[in-house]
């Protein structure tokens, strides 16, 4: 057993720790300041326009948009004219999410250790999910646009693959956290593997699956809109055209549509999700 410390030793030990802690804090703050100011000045140098000159022009573009909007007489008609493009983007996200979620489900069942399919499949499925998740949608979409032409389908496939990876990971976490008792009960009745999954696992995981998929759907609407910017159709493409023309009234119309869609879908899906899982997975 160690000899007990005297009060003095304890004191000096405490002071030492305190000082080290202060040093860490100072180093951390110093490093943060260096990152901030250093980063800012590098970024400022690399940027084609400066920060301080830009600040003066900051409101030029927004104010031009607002002026154009009030100057246009048929602005509401513009909004209506763009709704098919918005619908296309929503459809892109929907189809991508649907297929992506189905793929994610298959991957999740293959990658959950506790469901006992083929143990050899687990690492394969996990790596597959890691790869699809890490691959940026934009790059995939650009490749597919080169192959398939500038249509919404490249965007759908890109969204789908990314969704499969992202949702697959979440789904497999849900799978691994299930209560095993229903499974054991079913096994005791002599249920087959499929029956065990259908009656023991699915009822437990389906609400969470749906909730995650809805959340992903919201994310995918944004992603599909963005992919439109590189030529995949939908509202993103219209956006790009409107911005390059500098047509303020069209920009604001598209903006309103996108914003409204996101808000409405956000509201609907958060209500459904609350019903599904009792509000437990609001911030996933």
């Amino acid at each position: 057993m160690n000899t007990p410390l005297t009060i003095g030793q304890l004191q000096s030990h405490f002071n030492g720790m305190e000082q080290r802690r202060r040093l860490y804090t100072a180093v951390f703050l110093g490093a943060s300041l260096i990152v901030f100011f250093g980063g800012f000045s590098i970024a400022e140098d690399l940027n084609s326009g400066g920060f301080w000159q830009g600040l003066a022009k900051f409101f030029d573009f927004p104010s031009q948009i607002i002026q154009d909007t009030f100057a246009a007489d048929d602005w509401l008609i513009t909004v209506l004219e763009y709704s098919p493009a918005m619908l296309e983007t929503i459809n892109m996200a929907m189809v991508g999410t649907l297929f992506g979620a189905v793929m994610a489900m298959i991957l999740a069942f293959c990658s959950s250790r506790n469901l006992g399919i083929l143990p050899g499949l687990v690492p394969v499925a996990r790596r597959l999910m890691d790869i699809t998740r890490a691959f940026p949608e934009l790059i995939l979409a650009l490749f597919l646009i080169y192959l398939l032409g500038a249509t919404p389908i490249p965007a759908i496939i890109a969204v789908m693959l990314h969704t499969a990876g992202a949702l697959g990971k979440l789904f497999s976490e849900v799978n691994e956290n299930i209560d095993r008792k229903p499974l054991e009960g079913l096994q005791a009745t002599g249920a087959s593997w499929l029956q065990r999954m259908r009656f023991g696992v699915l009822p437990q995981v389906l609400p969470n699956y749906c909730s995650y998929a809805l959340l992903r759907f919201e994310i995918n609407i944004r992603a599909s809109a963005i992919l439109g910017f590189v030529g995949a159709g939908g509202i993103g493409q219209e956006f790009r055209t409107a911005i390059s023309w500098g047509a303020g009234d069209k920009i604001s119309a598209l903006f309103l549509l996108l914003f409204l869609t996101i808000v409405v879908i956000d509201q609907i899906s958060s209500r459904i999700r609350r019903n599904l899982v009792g509000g437990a997975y609001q911030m996933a």
Partner: protein
Amino acid sequence: MTTMTLDSQASRLRRTHGEVIRKSRMAAFWPLTSLGIVLGYLVYAWIAFDVSGVFGAADWNRGVLLSRDSFHHKYQVSYSARQDEVSVTVEGDRNTEQDPLPSWVTTDGDSYRVSLGGRHIVTFATGRLDYTAPDGSTYAVRVTQDGVHVNGYRAFLDDDNQYRFVPEEQSGNANPLDMDELVERGILPEGSSFAPTKFEYAPDFYKTMRVTRAQILVQRYFFGWEYFWFGPKSQLHGLSTGALWDLAWSEERIDPALSNAEFIFLEFWRNPDWQHNEMFIALLETLLMALLGTFVAAGVGLPLGFLAAANFNPIFASRMVLRRLFDFLRGIDQIIWSLIFIRAFGLGPLTGSLAIAFTDTGTLGKLFSEAIENIDSKQVEGVRSTGATAIQRYRFGVIPQILPIFVSQTLYYLESNIRSATVIGALGAGGIGLKLVQSMQTQQDWENVMYLIVMTLIVVVSMDIASGWLRRKLINDRG
């Protein structure tokens, strides 16, 4: 037990607990109906997106070309009629002129003999190209006054906009043959394209030839990225790793001003073909965008989060204003912010980081204010009971409670922002994303595209791993 009693029991159960049976029937009804709805929707989507049309029109050959060009480089032997000279280059880049000629190209001064591998042999001279296939059949392509002739035949466009072929000595276009007939008679190789002024043929993916009036071009593909380490003009090109290692430590300087190791590094770094230095700067720009943006967002989001938390700011109206501000910042996508900022600040990482900072101030501010509202007030009360000032109460009562959330959320957003910085960059803010899109849009240097993609993936994945590790470490350390 007899059947009678079982039946009566069943009917009794149905009478007393009918809702159970009805419920399970309903339970069977909904999955089927929703499956039907989904299938119906997919049929609609199939039609709306014209899936079959798009896949029908897809150019799969491009996919093959793309994957070949990503991992191969091509040597091209070309004869230009205008300059009346033959050159052997890599990827058609004049800086890569091969002298001496590679072993598979030989010349007797007048004509050139190109062995394309696999007993495919091309010989050419001014105005003529002869191709010998492995099976011994030969095809003589001649450039004449009126165009390109193959094995004594010339092509013309008929009234139906189809190419037809007649013997070259025939003056009119009577009794023309079509492509299949020419292939059948062994006049044209299968899969070639023959037009009045152009002959093109690719025996397989690794060799192509093209004859027009202005140019004769023979290409041969090899695996790998040529000139990846050192450019064509560099004297280090072609040295083995061992030779380079020896050179790096040898006393005799190549360039008197630099040590050999430095010289070798700079030759690699400033390789004009692959531009490693520019690539590095672009990567740095992307990282900087994400880092600076997240940093500003966290720094601004934290105080705003305090102001938006009900337990620290008693004024309801100002809280509401802040909350709506968060919603506004979050609701507008990073891409749209960056498009607004490009107008004001020009292209570059500053624009990208501002876009990231704006969106994430909204997200992090909201998260932080929620975390602050959920803190345990006992700790604050304890600090207060010692007579601490307001600042001390925050410092010792609140900050320790929200620090793990602050750190982990900030790191999490940093991770995702590196991904989004690529996207924002691609749409104009600069960095690796912009380089990627630009090199993809030129649609020729696919090996450069592949290099960029590999670099991007390495950065994204390694940042994911690093931040995940840091997050776990920080959170575990704090219990």
